[in-house]
């Protein structure tokens, strides 16, 4: 079933992709092939493979239970939040919080996770910014 869903998604993707390829505006200065042909070839490969997924699906993969899926979704949310917090709160604070959260969700005790988050963040800050001179996001406090 999972493969059939993949096939349906791939089919839609292929159709959408080819359709988008056909509406590419061509400039008057073009080579014989133009910007459309290669994407249309790729789109065709996607459509062919999607047909195969639907026709002959593989055995079902082991999907994690709903709780685990939510866990992954939550981690994604934290990471997206992290990317938005970076320019506002600076590297050290945002990284400490994000790393602490991930460590906690991976099964560490809450206190240990907070410590690990701070250590990770400071460790990266010291080694990459202070020692190697990489530019990291700067917050209102200068770090």
């Amino acid at each position: 079933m999972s493969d059939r869903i993949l096939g349906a998604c791939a089919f839609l993707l292929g159709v959408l992709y080819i359709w988008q390829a056909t509406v590419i505006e061509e400039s008057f200065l073009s080579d014989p092939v133009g910007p459309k042909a290669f994407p249309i070839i790729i789109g065709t490969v996607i459509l062919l493979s999607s047909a195969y997924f639907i026709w002959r699906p593989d055995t079902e993969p082991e999907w994690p239970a709903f709780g685990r899926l939510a866990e992954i979704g939550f981690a994604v949310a934290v990471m997206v939040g992290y990317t938005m917090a970076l320019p506002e709160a600076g590297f050290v604070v945002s990284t400490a919080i994000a790393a602490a959260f991930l460590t906690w969700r991976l099964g560490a005790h809450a206190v240990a996770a907070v410590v690990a988050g701070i250590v990770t963040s400071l460790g990266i800050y010291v080694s990459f910014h202070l020692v190697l001179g990489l530019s990291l996001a700067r917050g209102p406090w200068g770090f």
Partner: protein
Amino acid sequence: MDTLSALADGFAVALTWQNLGLALLGCFLGTVFGALPGLGPSNGVAILIPLAFTLGLPAAPALILLTSVYYGAMYGGRISSILLNIPGDEPALMTTLDGHPMAKQGMAGEALALSGIASFVGAFFATWGLVFLAPQLVKVALLFGPAEYFALFTLAFATLGGIASRNQAKAAFAAALGLGIATIGVDGQTGVPRFAFGEVHLYDGIDFLVAIVGLFALSEVFVFLEHRGTSKEATADSMKIGRVTPPMSMLNKTWGAMSRSTIFGFVAGVLPGAGASLGSFIAYTFEKRYSDRKGTFGKGDPRGIAAPEAGNNAAAGGALVPMLALGVPGSGTTAVLLAMLLALNITPGPLLFQSNPDVVWGLIAALFIGNIMLLAMNIPLVTMFVRVLLVPPKYLMPAVAMISFVGIYGISGSSFDLQVMIIFGVMGWVLRKLDVPLVPVILGVLLGDQMEKNLRRALTISDGDWTVLFASPLAIGLWAFAILGFVAPLVVGRYFRPKIADETKAEGADPD
């Protein structure tokens, strides 16, 4: 003898304090990445690329650092295979079969030492193979026109799908997905935006480093979240290793296995789309058929350790041949190395040998030096790496994720790129669950631009006549191999694939 004098010049490049230091650092980090389950050569190198790039390392030192990581990971993977029965990375899968039983018999130290020596033998001779084979391949590649290059890229995707994958349709889909991603952005030849949907950030296209780090490194974090608590953790008890020297009799018994496996591994590495996992698999299977007369394989036979370790290290060297000489990587990690070169505006391929001989030969010389460093690190100092295994992944994986973010942020300084990277991370996880291989996706993202450019160049020359793609004997030969590589595995069955990789470990394993 041109080759040897070029190699001597290479040693002059590699023997600076900076490059030696980078090789040492790379070997150390590589062994650590290889040893830790979940981190392997391709995501280890992927995490380090943005860092090497933002630190402003020139091409030769950057490449020395990263290939040392690559070689190092091939050494490191065996440590957890032997001690914990968990492969540290995918190529080390076969080493568990005899390595762990040997450790259980109290011979862990001997097993580690023997596998270290086998790794050295494989890597050392494969690097010599690289020295002599790559310039020959360059001579052929100089005859290639755009049509031949287009056929060559197709060949790489076809064999990647045919040999190294379980399901051809999924490999084809993965390649098309990668190529499709590569077409996003302003078309280089006509200047019209494609698939950008008016989003300014997309006009530049999607940075392949973002895609690589997302697909390889971040998806690994999600796999860990999914399997939290179910994986075995290392205990200090399983880390007792005893003496770390192999008895002479054991070396005498295994040198045949090592030399045969080196040859098989090297050939497997040179074939496009095969890589180190296949190298170690073929080496082990052949050795088992050839010399397992008493049925000792799988019960702790030293030859069963020497064969896959020599095989995977030889394949790692072999895989560099097509990457450097043709610009077509044969495996996941060499694809990532190709990304490094492209990010530095260096186009690998035959011209690399002419325009940047210092990069090529400096790199090869560094591989020889690194290999000796690795031998030294992996025999007397192996206990140090064994301790690394005691660091629980729950502390390690968040750090990996954060370092990935740091690297990408260092390049572009944009939150948008980080968000795209998260999308790739999730996509990588879903594709892994569905058994869609990630290496063709990466290869597509990397090569899409070149592939399209060559197609359009060929057709511009022929003024729109598509038969030009099949006009020269060289091109026809490449197409024939492409079709053969894609179809033959369907016909001759699944002989070329690690059977045990099918069942459990494959989804979580890091591609080489």
